[in-house]
């Protein structure tokens, strides 16, 4: 390929990517704009909260318990080296509430709820249901997309809180009942070291941001998928990959904003 062709290909790629970004931004603005009209039919959103939230509870709670158990075991190993085994509660609570709770919940959510959203929207598009709605003068963004967006944004903080709480309780069971860390120290060190606004509050803000990002990505990728079985399969893969990378990258930015020393 001669240099002229390479420049042309490069230019075309950059312009296409920019156009895709703009298309996604307009889609996001549409979602937000139609949030309020879709709340006039609350049952749509409630049904979606059931599909997204309730159906994710089992995996979120089980993963939270598993992470809490492992944190307690590994944390005790290292802390007891320096004679600080009593700080186990503080370690587990801070790790879960600040970082692991929001990020792991978002990754599991992207995998479980994100893929089902993408597949659903993609199949609706493949079966021409969205076009049929438009024919009947029913706005699919109000009826189909916005309720799923609201449901995702609502469900994420609740799921994140469930993850962190179950993790702390599981760590209590292992640390106090099985290993023998002092129960009073476990809770009192945790309570004096974890701040409601700075730690719990920031964690909930993180889950909100991750919820917006994951749900938006899932809906957009589904909406733009090719209307074939392979297209839908490719779309679900892209949802998980893009959501997970976005969540991890946003986590870095949010942590730097929230927890760095001024």
């Amino acid at each position, binding site marked *: 390929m001669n240099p002229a062709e390479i420049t042309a290909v490069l230019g075309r790629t950059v312009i296409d990517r920019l156009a895709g970004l703009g298309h996604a931004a307009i889609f996001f603005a549409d979602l937000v704009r139609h949030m309020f009209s879709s709340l006039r039919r609350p049952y749509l959103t409630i049904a979606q909260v*059931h599909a997204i939230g309730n159906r994710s509870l089992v995996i979120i709670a089980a993963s939270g318990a598993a992470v809490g158990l492992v944190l307690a075991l590994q944390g005790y190993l290292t802390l007891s080296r320096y004679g600080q085994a009593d700080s186990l509660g503080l370690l587990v609570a801070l790790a879960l*509430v600040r970082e692991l709770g929001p990020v792991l919940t978002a990754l599991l959510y992207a995998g479980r709820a994100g893929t089902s959203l993408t597949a659903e929207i993609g199949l609706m598009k493949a079966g021409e249901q969205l076009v049929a709605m438009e024919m009947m003068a029913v706005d699919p963004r109000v009826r189909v997309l916005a309720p799923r967006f609201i449901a995702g944004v609502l469900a994420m903080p*609740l799921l994140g809180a469930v993850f962190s709480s179950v993790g702390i309780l599981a760590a209590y069971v292992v640390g106090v009942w099985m290993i023998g860390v002092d129960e009073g120290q476990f809770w009192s060190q945790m*309570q004096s070291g974890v701040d*409601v606004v700075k730690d*719990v509050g920031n964690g*909930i803000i993180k889950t909100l941001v991750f919820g917006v990002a994951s749900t938006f990505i899932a809906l957009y990728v589904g909406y733009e998928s090719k209307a074939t079985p392979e297209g839908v399969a490719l779309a679900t893969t892209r949802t998980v990959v893009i959501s997970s990378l976005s969540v991890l990258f946003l986590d870095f930015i949010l942590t730097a904003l929230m927890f760095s020393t001024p």
Partner: protein
Amino acid sequence: MSKKQTEILVGGFVVLGMLAILFLALKSANMASFSFHPTYRVLARFDEIGGLKVQAPVKSAGVTVGRIADISFDNKSFQAVVALDIDRQYAFPTDSSAKVLTAGLLGDKYVGIEAGGDEKNIQAGESIKMTQSAIVLENLIGQFLYNKAGDAGKDGAAKK
């Protein structure tokens, strides 16, 4: 699944999430940044505050009685002026003293107040007269070396 059943399940999910948030907020965290006790402001001047920061605790007998509200520099007396917000339920005599202490061995700095013996209590806007500055590690090491050198000099002179 009927409409009613779905709504009940979603309600249950929301309640569970709220309970989890409440548990995190109340049982595993402290509401230190939420305490809205009324405070009164008292000033204290120090020659050296070390690494004292705004929002550091003010303690008396080891119990937190207030927070540092503001730290500024007085260009005329070349001293640090520290504003302490003390809980209104605690009153200290006018001859109380304030020291800059360290939490633990090498931890963060805080201000400790030792009560004096005066009958009158210090009011808002007044200054704590007796203050003790922070201990700076470099000055301490310098003093120690100077003393060591002085002892060696004295021994040398005594031998001669």
